[in-house]
């Protein structure tokens, strides 16, 4: 697996290093057009999330009782909801919510999981067995119950949703990194580090973790899409982000289903936004996986 020889980069001039990086990007686009398209859509999503307050035609929270359930028109491109709020503006702001939840969950979940997985492989023996059993328990525990419990204890809201989604991701990440780290533990340089008398923490963080980068990155992109989907599901159930915050899952809840026949735009467009965002993340993540490690199959 991703065990590369130590690259000697110190004496390469800055310009050549940059051009090499640029060449890698160009190569990725040429060889994996689907992945490149995904990356562009992901970038677009991030930009929309960052600039939602500039590009939205309306305030996402502003109600207009004169234009409730209005059809898509020049004034409201994607129509309005039951409170007369502009659907397009709410979708653009929803992108911000989705990106924050997605990146926070994926980053924390994959990182904590990777550290646990590598540590588990490094210590081996009884500690490994213990960590594995604890992870098993969390894997067998239904996610929705964990989420329900977290939300009941802490209440709804963005931070709590992030926690509810991150906790179940950790054991999955740990499982995957552990299997890669098992091979790395046998590498001579880990033995050398141990012989040199480095502390466990240093060996794990400095010598082993950088070498599970490939599965880590792959997991990160996969978790991004999953986190966005989970957030949408939880918000749809009323357990996620709470009104009046603009979130895609929340937009599908309640009135969207109730008025689906007369105002289908309320139910269709937020769902499309979710699908498109997750689709782009998956497309990009898939190609990244193929590029980094063709043998690593699935999570």
């Amino acid at each position, binding site marked *: 697996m991703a065990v590369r020889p130590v690259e000697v980069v110190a004496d390469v001039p800055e310009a050549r290093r940059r051009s090499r990086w640029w060449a890698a990007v160009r190569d990725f686009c040429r060889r994996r057009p689907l992945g490149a398209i995904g990356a562009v859509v992901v970038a677009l999503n991030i930009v929309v999330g960052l600039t939602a307050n500039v590009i939205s035609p309306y305030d996402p929270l502003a109600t207009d009782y004169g234009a409730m359930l209005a059809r898509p028109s020049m004034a409201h491109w994607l129509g309005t909801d039951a409170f007369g709020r502009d659907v397009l503006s709410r979708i653009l702001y929803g992108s911000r919510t989705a990106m924050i939840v997605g990146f926070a969950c994926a980053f924390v979940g994959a990182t904590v999981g990777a550290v646990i997985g590598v540590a588990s492989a490094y210590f081996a023996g009884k500690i490994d067995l213990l960590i594995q059993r604890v992870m098993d328990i969390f894997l067998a*525990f239904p996610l929705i119950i964990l989420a329900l*419990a977290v939300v009941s204890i802490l209440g709804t809201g963005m931070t709590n949703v992030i926690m509810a989604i991150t906790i179940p991701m950790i054991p999955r990440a740990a499982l995957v990194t552990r299997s890669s780290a098992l091979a790395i533990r046998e590498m001579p340089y880990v033995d050398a580090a141990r012989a040199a008398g480095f502390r466990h923490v240093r060996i794990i963080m400095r010598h082993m973790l950088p070498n599970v980068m490939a599965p880590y990155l792959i997991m990160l992109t996969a978790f991004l899409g999953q986190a966005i989907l989970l957030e949408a599901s939880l918000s749809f*159930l009323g357990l996620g982000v709470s009104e009046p915050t603009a979130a895609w899952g929340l937009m599908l809840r309640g009135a969207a289903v109730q008025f689906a026949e007369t105002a289908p735009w309320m139910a269709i467009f937020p*769902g499309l936004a979710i699908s498109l965002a997750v689709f782009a993340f998956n497309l990009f993540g898939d190609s990244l996986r193929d590029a980094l490690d063709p043998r690593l199959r699935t999570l």
Partner: protein
Amino acid sequence: MLKYILKRVLLMIPTLLSVAVLVFFLMRIVPGDIVELRFAGESAFAQKENLDKERARLGLDQPLWKQFVTWMWGLLRFDFGSSMWTGAPITEEIRLRFALSLQLAIMATVVAVVLAIPLGVLAALKQDTWVDYAVRIFSIAGLATPSFWLGIVFILLLLIVFKWLPPMVYTPFWVNPVQNLAQLIWPALAVGYRYSAVATRMTRSAMLEVLREDYIRTARAKGLWQKLILSRHALKNAMLPVLTVIALEFAFLMGGLVVTEQVFNLNGLGLLFVESVAHRDYTLTQALVLLVAFIFIIVNFFVDLTYAWLDPRIRLR
């Protein structure tokens, strides 16, 4: 082999026990209890003695460890007690929902398998052609689409195009099969599509891997029929990881369809879950979590068993 099975069965016990401990204490950390919730509707100033009387009736006035021991003792005798909210025996409460969830899970699995295996094999055989790309886009889109939203879209399409709405009241299969299928086919399609995506990708990559093996080349060199090579040599060996994915996904479907059930107004295990947590119905929630964990563990066990049976190297480790 027998020793291997025995070892695996024994390993299940500590996992289940930990799940039980976890859910027991997790439920009690959650603020508010069933008595408060029940009396909250009646009057803002429910008499304290009434609350205490009700708690005593449900055994909630006992110290925690005593409640835990009582519950564990019940479990050992397969006595799950009765729901704190409805008072009905838990086995009864769950039995009704279980049938529906099981049927939906089976139907979704059938949809997924029928879609996934042919598509996955096709994509692997035509690797890097437009067929492969089309299958991959189709399956990635399946992963990206929330199945509850797909359900909403199905209902909308049926309503707008055919002016027909699927029945919204559940009829058991043995009472009226047509009515039953007319209702359940839509959630099964919505869930099955998403679920097929995982299996399609697995089939494709497993096939790609197997097709590069030496024994496939040998079979080709022998001049065997392409069809025979595919079905006998390649597909059979590629099915192991696919089987794993399908089995684990099936276990997940049994308790994890909360949102889809909501959209289609189905009273399955998922909805029971949400209700029981919302009511702080400790006994029912604990039983449900244990049931779902048990299904997950047992499916995992069978998957491992199949592996060990097919691959002697695993058994001997």
